[in-house]
């Protein structure tokens, strides 16, 4: 059952004049080099897969989409430069899938007065969408959802009494911790131990050591990639076996490979369906078809952004102006992106949810090498 929700329906061949055949330009500023290069590249691939697919199906109103990924090496100044370039020189109609909280915030200041949309501002930081910024349409679900979801699961489902928290000491990890802490307080609990690690840490021995001393029965490990894996593996080595809960983003086959058997039973949450489940096959096929790297939780963010853009583009008819797209995006309600829970945006005055496409996450659990939805 392959239905991308976009490609199959948007393939109305263009009957417009020749000038309409000009490509529709979109672009994104992503870290394609430096330490976060792998992330940006995955996102770019996710976007490219959907764009290629749409173009193969005839484009939008017969106009092909041209996607320009730009490298900012995670530097906000470069992010802003890239954004300005796309808006100004490439005459892009929208930014689709730009990554990085700080860069997006800088860009928003420039874009807001222009009514120029970033469709799929990829940041789970609440600061991006609360208060809502006119031009930023943020994806996926924010941290105010993620942290509490994990806490609630640990307390209610796992019946944990002693919960510890480890988080990355930056604008990604710290808010997650704050929200979780609030949730804990509301449940009348305190974390038994809290540790941080630096974004570029290469090992987690200190954190593990200190967490272990607190003898928790559950650890919320707000880490990704090698840091999360390193903690999980070392914990297993030392026969330290609390319940482990992690953020969205752990769900990729490669990360599962990193932890191997040690990962069994790890609890995570996600805005997207598990990649390995059957209903995600079409995404994998797309990536394979266009010789892109395997889909991952990062690439899914790109996929999601691109799908939302196409959905909005379909609503504007022939009026491919940034402003029209911005208005159209505001009108998206319960759009089924097929890779996760539906997406809705709203008018700026609709408050917090106006600029945050997804507000739910579901718990997934690692079983036999695959993340699977929690069984109720």
């Amino acid at each position, binding site marked *: 059952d392959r239905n991308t929700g976009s490609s199959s329906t948007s393939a109305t061949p263009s009957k417009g004049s020749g000038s309409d055949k000009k490509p529709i330009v979109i672009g994104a500023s992503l870290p394609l080099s430096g*330490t976060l290069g792998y992330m940006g*590249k995955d996102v770019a691939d996710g976007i490219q897969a959907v764009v290629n697919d749409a173009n193969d199906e005839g484009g939008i109103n017969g106009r092909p989409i041209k996607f320009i990924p730009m490298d900012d090496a995670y530097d906000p100044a470069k992010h802003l430069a890239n954004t300005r370039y796309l808006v100004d020189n490439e005459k892009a109609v929208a930014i689709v899938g730009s990554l990085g909280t700080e860069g997006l915030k800088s860009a928003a200041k420039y874009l807001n007065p222009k009514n120029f949309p970033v469709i799929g501002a990829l940041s789970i930081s609440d600061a991006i969408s609360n208060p809502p910024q006119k031009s930023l349409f943020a994806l996926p679900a924010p941290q105010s959802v993620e942290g509490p979801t994990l806490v609630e699961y640990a307390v209610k489902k796992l019946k944990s009494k002693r919960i510890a928290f480890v988080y990355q000491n930056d604008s990604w990890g710290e808010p997650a911790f704050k929200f979780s802490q609030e949730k804990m307080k509301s449940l009348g609990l305190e974390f038994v131990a809290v540790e941080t690690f630096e974004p*570029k840490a290469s*090992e987690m021995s200190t954190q593990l050591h200190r967490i272990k001393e607190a003898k928790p029965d559950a650890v919320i490990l707000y880490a990704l*990639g*090698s840091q999360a*894996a*390193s903690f999980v593996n070392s914990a297993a080595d030392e026969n330290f076996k609390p319940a482990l809960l992690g953020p969205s983003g752990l769900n990729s086959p*490669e990360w599962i*490979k990193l932890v191997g058997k040690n990962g069994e039973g790890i609890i995570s949450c996600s805005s997207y369906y598990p990649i390995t489940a059957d209903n995600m096959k079409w995404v994998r096929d797309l990536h394979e078809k266009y010789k892109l790297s395997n889909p991952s939780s990062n690439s899914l963010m790109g996929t999601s952004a691109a799908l939302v853009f196409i959905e909005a583009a379909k609503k504007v008819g022939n009026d491919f102006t940034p402003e029209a797209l911005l208005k159209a995006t505001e009108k998206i309600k319960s759009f089924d992106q097929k890779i996760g829970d539906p997406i809705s945006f709203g008018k700026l005055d609709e408050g917090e949810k106006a600029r945050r496409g997804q507000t739910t996450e579901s718990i997934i659990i690692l079983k036999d090498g695959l993340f699977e939805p929690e069984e109720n």
Partner: protein
Amino acid sequence: MLQLIIDGLIYGSIYALIGFAISTLFMTTGVVNFAIGETITFSMYVGIITMEWFHTSYLLTAIEIILLTVLFTVLITRILVLPLLKHGSIISTIGTASMYIIFPILTVGLSTQDHPFPKAPIPQMNLGIISSWDAVIFVITAFVAILLHVFVMKSSWGVGIRAIKSNQSHALSIGISVGKIVMITAILSGFIGGITGLIAAPKLLLTHNLMGTPFMVALIGAVLGGLNNPKGIYFGCLLLGVVQSITGGLFGSISREIIPILIVIIVLVIKPEGLFSSIREKRV
């Protein structure tokens, strides 16, 4: 506490290996090859990919990785470091920084993923408090440290190396083959770099940032001990590893970022050439 110290010693050993890779080339050129960590990472990725695609054996992969790091280090030395050295070691160092920018992009091009990296097929030993791979890390580093110490401080080539460090233009003017000795140290640097990758990756996992933080810490540790002699680097890095581990363990992870660097600055203020390096007096 014992566990903290052991942890510190093991990570310190990894830092020391990187420190050796940095210092071998530094000893002849005064250039810190900023790209060394990134070339190691790139070679490791090439290694893991050939391993996955062609199912090469561990030994073959290891050789491949070491050869690649040697090749890259030699090329960087040949193309950038040596030609720029005439104009000063700072310019040369900034020259290597260009590779520091380029290599990660190549690595991402190879693979955007993290990988578990296999350990060398050594017999599992029951060593009680310390895992057998940690034992390997410790022993190999100590071994490299001793060899390097003998080579630099005792052998006649070591005298040549230190002569070039002392004054390169003097060395040239009396006919020492500076280029050749520099290349020898470049090869050595790459070789140690390759070994570092093989040793560290199973412990740290193979990521794009495999050498990012360790490189910085190693540099700090090496400076703490004194970059000019292997002994200084070895004990400097070990010390830093242990200090990090203990302060982290006792006072939390933020202190682990702050206290070691404070120690370094205090040491430098008191002993500008590092703990284990005697200050060479100058007279006029």
